């Protein structure tokens, strides 16, 4: 159990007693050092899972453990030491008047020493490549930069787990790319656990594992390569595979693929091999 960072055990949740269940008997676990993507259509329950993970909500049935601690109203402050969260709207999560103050906020709340604080601010801004913006006003940054500062603010408190709750949904393509690069950097440079919540299958390519939600239930737990094969059934639950996967899936009766390509480059590599043998 020591290696399981997050455990959901038969978790059910609804927002009010006369409302339908948002999550129905959901069980899964996330291992240390894993990046897990939680995927689903609007209203599938994926964001509710995020809110349950750091005690913004509590389950009506079942139990949740984060880093060995059960999430309850009594433990919520311990949990939030370990779980950092980045939300969808970049404009709703700033408190500081400069980038530096904003990243400092979480540290000040925890009474971290000034020396350590300065150090952590620098380190975390470096991780998201925003050191040049120390004294900029957050609201004047681009969407992608804002989200990177938000990620830095979370990194500074050194959580074990970072949840990105549709953190790219309101960004333009350039901002999205920035965030995906940042997340990939974090994967390589830190040991932090990542949970990313999205409905965009282009954003799960780098994840170790995917949990697909549908109408409050786990529909499938798999890896990105496997998921990309399931074009038809994904469409039935309101999701869509990337262009690369669509092309691949239609070429399968002609081309022998070693494995399902995740990127255009992988697809082209395999097509090149096939073509050169003809």
């Amino acid at each position, binding site marked *: 159990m020591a290696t399981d960072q997050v455990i959901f055990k038969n978790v059910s949740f609804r927002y009010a007693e006369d409302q339908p269940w948002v999550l129905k008997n959901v069980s899964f676990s996330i291992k240390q050092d894993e990046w897990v993507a939680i995927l689903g259509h609007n209203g599938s329950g994926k964001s509710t899972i995020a809110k349950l993970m750091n005690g913004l909500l509590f389950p009506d049935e079942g139990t949740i453990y984060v880093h060995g601690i059960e999430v309850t109203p009594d433990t919520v402050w311990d949990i939030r030491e370990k779980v950092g969260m980045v939300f969808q709207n970049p404009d709703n999560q700033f408190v500081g008047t400069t980038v530096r103050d904003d990243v400092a906020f979480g540290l000040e709340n925890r009474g971290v020493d000034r020396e350590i604080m300065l150090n952590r601010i620098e380190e975390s801004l470096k991780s998201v490549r925003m050191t040049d913006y120390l004294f900029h006003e957050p609201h004047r940054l681009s969407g992608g930069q804002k989200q990177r500062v938000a990620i830095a603010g979370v990194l500074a408190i050194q959580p074990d787990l970072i949840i990105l709750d549709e953190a790219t*949904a309101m960004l333009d393509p350039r901002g999205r790319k920035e965030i995906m690069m940042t997340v990939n950097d974090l994967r390589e440079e830190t040991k932090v656990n990542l949970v990313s919540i999205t409905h965009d299958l282009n954003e799960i390519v780098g994840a170790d594992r995917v949990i697909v939600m549908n109408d409050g239930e786990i529909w499938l737990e798999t890896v990105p390569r496997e998921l990309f094969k399931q074009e038809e059934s994904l469409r039935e639950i309101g999701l869509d595979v990337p262009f690369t996967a669509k*092309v691949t899936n239609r070429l399968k009766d002609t081309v022998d693929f070693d494995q399902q390509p995740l990127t255009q480059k992988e697809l082209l590599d395999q097509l*090149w091999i096939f073509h050169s043998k003809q």
Partner: protein
Amino acid sequence: MDISFKAVSHTYQPNSPFEYRALKDLSFNIQSGQFVAIVGHTGSGKSTLIQHLNGLLKPTSGEVMIGGYRLKAGEKTANIKGLREKVGVVFQYPEHQLFEETIEKDIAFGPKNFGATEEEIQTRLPKVLEAVNLDAKLLDRSPFDLSGGQMRRVAIAGVLAMEPEVLVLDEPTAGLDPKGQQEVMDMFYRLHHEKGLTTILVTHSMEDALKYADHVIILEQGKKHLEGQPEEIFVQKERLKQVQLDVPEEIQFLMDLKTRLGISITYDKHSVDDLVREIKAQIGGGR
């Protein structure tokens, strides 16, 4: 309605320390019945441009013509209310603007404001409900009881109920899941053709611009960077790169197919099925 921008500039808070030039000497023409995509990054001037289309903003220099309406600095536009009735704008996250007690009242708010009679509104209601695929049974419900996707449909129905001739769409699919995105875009595409609308789509999605538009304008820092048919614009990799835009996925794939495998397929709004059929025919093995 034909739309033309002639050397339009717009400066916010001129002659103050906060002066900001959002549009710079912008000229273009949109013909009645065209589907035009306006593409650009945050800060490129897209939102400022949109607000000129129904007179929420006026140029600080130059002039905008929309049908017979003229917007010009220092000049009072005759009958601007008439312009706003003809140009329907679906702003970003339009569901945030819902406010009425019932869905019916919310949809009726716009047309009522422009003097439509109760009778007229009642004949328009079923049409717009059908267009956005909402059940008439919902009319008495509060719009706030609906899901996000349904709320957006109600907001769009409110714009359609004014029976505009020009439809301006500002990132209409933002925040929707893939199925919702496709449903909303297909709906606008259908309406565009059925009603002979002039449609202006502001989008970040190169893929949507390629798929739906017959004319594309790319903005960068308030200026026009490129303009033309999507098939011409979206192959100009270097020019797009200058403004940090990517070639649409499918076009990039076709380019790479050519350079790496020598397979030459010209982009022709293929469906994926058709595209793969062509690849099979050329790659060998598809006998």
